[in-house]
């Protein structure tokens, strides 16, 4: 009886968006008298940081500072339609819709500015909340003043509409081929584990991953998804089960004392690197990097257990009981 070490590897290609009956998201952008832009979305921020990245995308597309953008999310009664915040699709879909809406709003902004500044709209540019005549930087006007002129002098709304639709892809009856997603992100994870052959206990020592996620709008938030997903993936592998004796419902957990998730003391050593190969259809080259982060750790850990003790436990979670039963079955072969 001893503690055995093993290393396992697993890779994933993860889709952004779904096929559904078509997969659209809409956005509305409009300018307040203060020069602040409101972005109205039904998509929601559930902690992944959607409000932040949509704010960044809108600010970039409009040419205004991040502080001049207010992102209003999550009310499906009052916001334009969205299929939902799932399938790692929100930054891709809502981001594209917001760029389209912001582009339309910016066009009106420049038309209003052109009248105020006595210049052609195509000769104007917006940067950091200032509209200026290209090549003549001393001729500038703030977005705030342009917004005031639009509201109270010219009587115009500086606003824009946006939608991103991935049309439904039919399945080819001959080949079964289909184009169900918009883009795919990629990851490979290496897991190092220790398996105690006396107790069946598995300890994850290290998870190291290489990600390719398209353009990162907010690298610190991408890192947050990757770190959180690594620990959640480890927990799915070793700890978590809603019905441990399914289809029997016995011993199903009813509280946090029974449904065990990792605490701050259960962390493996975590490493990752991120590569950026921008997608052709995402906003600024974005791909989805949400759900994928909890995927590759699972097969990597299962493979590492096999490397350590020569058994494949393919039913999750890999509890000490299952490891011991698999080891016993192997001995009896």
């Amino acid at each position, binding site marked *: 009886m001893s503690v055995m070490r093993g290393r396992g590897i697993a890779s994933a290609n993860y889709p952004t968006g779904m096929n559904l009956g078509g997969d659209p998201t809409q956005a509305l952008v409009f300018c307040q008298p203060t020069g602040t832009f409101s972005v109205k979305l039904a998509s929601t921020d559930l*902690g992944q940081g959607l409000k932040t990245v949509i704010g960044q995308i809108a600010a970039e597309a409009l040419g205004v500072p991040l502080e001049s953008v207010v992102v209003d999310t999550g009310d499906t009664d009052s916001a334009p339609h969205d299929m939902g915040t799932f399938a790692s699709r929100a930054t891709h879909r809502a981001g594209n819709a917001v760029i389209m809406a912001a582009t339309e709003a910016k066009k009106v902004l420049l038309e209003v500015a052109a009248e105020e500044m006595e210049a052609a709209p195509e000769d104007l540019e917006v940067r950091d909340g200032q509209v200026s005549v290209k090549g003549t930087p001393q001729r500038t006007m703030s977005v705030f003043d342009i917004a005031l002129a639009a509201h109270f002098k010219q009587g115009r709304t500086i606003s824009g509409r946006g939608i991103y639709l991935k049309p439904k892809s039919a399945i080819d009856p001959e080949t079964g081929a289909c184009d169900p997603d918009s883009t795919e992100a990629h990851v490979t994870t290496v897991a190092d584990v220790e398996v105690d052959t006396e107790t069946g206990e598995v300890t994850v020592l290290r998870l190291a991953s290489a990600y390719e996620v398209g353009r990162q709008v907010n690298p610190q938030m991408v890192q947050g998804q990757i*770190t959180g997903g690594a620990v959640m993936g480890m927990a799915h592998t070793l700890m978590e089960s809603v019905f441990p004796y399914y289809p029997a419902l016995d011993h199903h957990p009813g509280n946090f004392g029974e449904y065990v*998730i990792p605490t701050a003391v259960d*962390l493996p050593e975590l490493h990752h690197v991120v590569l950026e190969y921008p997608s052709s259809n995402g906003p600024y080259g974005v791909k989805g990097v949400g759900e994928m982060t909890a995927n590759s750790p699972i097969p990597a850990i299962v493979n590492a257990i096999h490397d350590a003790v020569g058994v494949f436990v393919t039913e999750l979670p890999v509890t000490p009981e299952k490891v011991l039963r698999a080891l016993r079955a192997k001995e009896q072969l």
Partner: protein
Amino acid sequence: MATQLATHIVTFQLNGRPHAVTVAPLTTLRTALREDLHLHATKAGCGQGGCGSCTVLLDNELVLSCLVPVTLVDGRSVTTLEGIGGPGRLHPLQEAFHDHFAAQCGYCTAGMIMAAKWLLDRNPNPTRAEIQMALAGNLCRCTGYVPIIEAIEDAARRMSKGVKR
């Protein structure tokens, strides 16, 4: 005729000021904070002492406010997240949590900061392992804990350099 529930008047120091609540028996401290005193930083999570999201300080000791009948805090001192800092007067822990993106959904955050405050009050220069142990009663589903631990390490450094608390 319906039986009228007895009520209790409980007076205690809350974030340095005297407060009183009139409550039914066995009302928890968490319910009194959130529903009677409208202090919503303290979160209602599992209600069974399993998640740590309702963590507050009672006479400078960590308690799970969902397990404390508010009548037991009569004459004592309670500190919630609102009491250690807020907009415009952030505690170094709150600044560090912000800078390290140590919150995603934010549901555990108030409890995490209270547990960290308890630790740093007793041990201003903790090791990483000591920080991890201090957080062991507080569950987080989003972050994988790493940015939270790094934020607490950073806050300890900021506070030891004499940043005003």
